[in-house]
């Protein structure tokens, strides 16, 4: 049951909201988390996509690994459609956002939020992005204790190496880059991903003779059959908290529930933040109103403190739709790690010589397990995907048209652009001899980029987010240089053909739309509204230099929770 009021209401059970909830609940506060999407793997919702189920869950015993096994099929088309941002009801489509060009925003709804899709990569920010880039009002050192806390709770460990990572590391080394074994990265080089994924059983070694069915308790940890982007139930048969990928639903949600102080209300979209304003004073947040996504009924709930954790698009949208005070930076400064895809294709005999087998087999291993860091530019990471996701992310879009329209005579890559027709089918026939490298650039916050709303363009929750994003000239140059480095690494590793997508802006990582120092103070409380905090990636003051942002978003959320306790309780 949802009560009339709580000490704290957290809006959004995504990557970061549950971290704040956990810390607040550990401090003894009563917390309600309101989540727009479904709650997977919870006995209160045995059929989360076909019937409304219960109202809320507050008992850790409700969590069920068996249900996760059933609900997370790992079939890519089904799971992408189940997890992407939209209501739980199978009969209904996505919640719309407007995004420029043929790019897209990838976010999920549901307990776990976009970490249901994420590949578990948990590097820290580049220290220089916090201490030297002039965006942050706090120091990297302030984040360190919280990084350690987050890394411990979600088991961050160096990722295992399979064929695709070996090939990438060989290429990086041959291209002259240094090996890095550090957490706090200040120079370019290659290293394994620090992943919030439990390492595989050592019996899964290629030289071993494992012939089991990769289920728990026969094996523990990751089973090296991808699955991370599609929710990941591996190892099947494992209890909820023994799943290898430590998405926030598996790591922080149970920890929060175990305190006995947390209630989670899924299928509930927050549409308003209620405030009280005493004469001449700033408004004070007093609670929220949410709308049940199955029935459409609305409910008001009171709180001493409200924490917005709806992600970098919905948090500013909610602020604007709730008519909270205008601030020139609300919704502005969006960074998305303006990215690109560079693909390497190999000949079978070349692979035989380096890997001892004629294929790379990108479908084996973790999705993303090797990285290249370059503070000031961003990062590269290898990506193994199932073929459908690989096709849409790697070949489905380009800012420079179809490959047959582009002359690459003087370019480092052999082909560039969107692929379709014969070229597409030919390249994808090499799926098992191909590696995709994701280029992730350190784009900088610009006021012109962000989220706005417009009356009339609405869905059932009010005006929809209209997103604008255009990279700067320097953003482009950072990305170009990274794409060139990726190309060189792939060539050094023996690739016979390199393809660059020149992707249009596409957002997998979204941050800095409610920036600390602009919209929020150093405790992440809104300058313009008392008792209203933000604890998601929108609070980040920039794109953390390019590394995958979740570790930093979660560390900051943990810090914010502590500030809330000392400030108001």
């Amino acid at each position, binding site marked *: 049951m949802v009560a009339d009021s709580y000490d704290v209401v957290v809006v959004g059970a995504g990557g970061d909201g549950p971290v704040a909830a956990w810390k607040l609940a550990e401090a003894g506060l009563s917390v309600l988390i309101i989540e727009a999407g479904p709650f997977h793997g919870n006995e209160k919702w045995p059929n989360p996509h076909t019937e409304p189920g219960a109202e809320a869950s507050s008992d850790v015993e409700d969590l069920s690994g068996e249900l996760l096994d059933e609900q997370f099929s790992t*079939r*890519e*088309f*089904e799971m992408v*459609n189940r997890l992407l941002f*939209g209501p739980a*009801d*199978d*009969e209904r*489509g996505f919640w719309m956002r407007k995004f*420029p*060009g*043929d790019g897209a925003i990838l976010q999920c709804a549901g307990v776990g939020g976009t970490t249901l899709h994420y590949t578990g990569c948990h590097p820290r920010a580049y*220290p*220089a992005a916090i201490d030297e880039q002039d965006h942050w009002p706090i120091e990297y050192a302030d984040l360190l204790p919280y990084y350690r806390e987050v890394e411990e709770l979600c088991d961050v460990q*160096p990722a*295992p*190496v399979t064929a695709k*990572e070996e090939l990438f590391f060989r290429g990086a*080394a041959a291209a002259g880059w240094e090996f890095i*074994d550090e*957490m*706090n990265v*200040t120079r370019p080089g290659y*290293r394994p991903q620090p992943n919030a994924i439990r*390492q*595989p059983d*050592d019996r*899964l*070694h*290629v030289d071993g003779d494992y012939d089991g069915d*990769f289920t728990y308790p026969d094996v523990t940890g990751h089973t090296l*059959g991808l699955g991370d982007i599609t929710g990941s139930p591996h190892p099947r048969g494992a209890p909820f908290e023994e799943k290898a990928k430590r998405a926030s639903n598996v790591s922080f949600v149970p920890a929060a529930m175990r305190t006995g102080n947390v209630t989670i209300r899924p299928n509930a979209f927050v549409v308003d933040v209620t405030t009280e304003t005493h004469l001449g004073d700033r408004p004070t947040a007093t609670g929220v109103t949410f709308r049940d996504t199955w029935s*459409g009924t609305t409910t008001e709930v009171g709180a001493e403190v409200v924490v917005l954790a709806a992600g970098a698009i919905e948090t500013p949208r909610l602020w604007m739709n709730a008519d909270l005070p205008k601030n020139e930076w609300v919704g502005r*400064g969006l960074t998305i790690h303006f990215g690109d895809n560079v693909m390497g294709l190999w000949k079978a005999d070349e692979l035989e010589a380096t890997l001892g087998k004629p*294929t790379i*087999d990108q479908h084996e291993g973790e999705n993303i397990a090797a990285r290249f860091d370059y503070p000031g530019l961003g990062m590269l990471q290898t990506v193994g995907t*199932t*073929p*459908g996701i*690989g*096709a*849409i992310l790697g070949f489905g*879009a380009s800012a420079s048209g*179809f490959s*047959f329209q582009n002359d690459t005579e003087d370019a480092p890559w052999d082909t560039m652009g*969107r692929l*379709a027709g*014969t070229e*597409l*089918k*030919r390249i*994808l*026939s090499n*799926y*098992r001899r191909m590696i995709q490298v994701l280029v992730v650039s350190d784009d900088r916050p610009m006021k012109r980029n962000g989220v706005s709303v417009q009356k009339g363009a609405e869905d059932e929750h009010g005006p929809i987010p209209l997103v604008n994003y255009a990279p*700067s*000239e*320097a953003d482009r*140059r950072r990305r170009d240089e990274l794409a060139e480095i990726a190309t060189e690494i792939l060539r050094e590793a023996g690739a016979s053909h390199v393809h660059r997508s020149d992707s249009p802006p596409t957002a997998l990582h979204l941050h800095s739309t409610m920036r600390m120092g602009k919209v929020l103070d150093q405790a992440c409380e809104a300058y313009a509204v008392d008792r209203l905090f933000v604890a998601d990636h929108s609070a980040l003051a920039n794109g953390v230099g390019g590394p995958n942002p979740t570790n930093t978003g979660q560390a900051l959320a943990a810090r914010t929770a502590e500030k809330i306790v000392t400030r108001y309780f």
Partner: protein
Amino acid sequence: MYQKNALRRVRTFLAEKARWIRTIRRRVLGRKCADRPGDLHTRVTFRAAVDAVLPNTPELEAEIGADHVPGGNDVGLAEFVAIYVDHRFQLGLPRTRRNVELVKPVANVLDAAALKLIARGNNRDEPSDEWPVKLFDGTDVSPARIADVAGPFARLSPKDRLRAINVLDEIEAQVTLRNGRFVEFDGGLVGQLVVGFAELIYYSEWQGYPDVTRMPFGQDHANDPTTVQGWRQTGFPGFSNGYPCLRGYLGTETGPLGSGDVWTTIDDRGDAPVSLLEAPGRFRENEYDTDDYEEPYPEGGD
């Protein structure tokens, strides 16, 4: 020469536009198919898009084998893309489906893009009825009927259709809902649907569901790689619980990352070779110093 080309271009454009207006009239008068979203014009347009993006490719037979010949229209991809758009891209109130029909606007945006391409003279081939008619070879829809409803997009050659998709980003479209609310969308969304999503669906497990005209939800899947064309054409072996493919952990014998036997050496340039080691270690919690940081491409941002 230039003038003659320009004249020809204007003539082609006017002729295509006039035809298009006529087809719109016919479509308004024509009946909607009961069992699938959109009308025949939509179906022709979606088939034309799929034919450009995932064509039947006899030319690949000699190069990589007969398995690589069939394309999207051989497995009903266009029809499913329309169903998919209809199902997933809706707005509004719980339990009232189809309050916005996006399938027809998508087809119309493709036609608008085709007209733009033609107006600019950027099509390489003359538009022709032959293309859309060919898309329905072997079906019971008559060529005359196809020629009647086919819009300018479907009448372009396959490469020109891709060129038209490329100018979509310049088009802003709007769908007005019954209650007066509206949704604007960038033409780029259409490109995403007919290229990106078509590719996702084609290479995914989709074709392995018993009913390929429904969303996968609630359907079983045999996970048999031989029954999914996209899997046969990529060599994807189907979904698996796991693979015994671990090669080890990257590290050095002297550092904290990795320990145990060396399986293979990655880089032997330095004093401590970088190798794949038997057991995992931990990252170093290092001191850091950012004083030397230099911006490769300076820019303050705001």
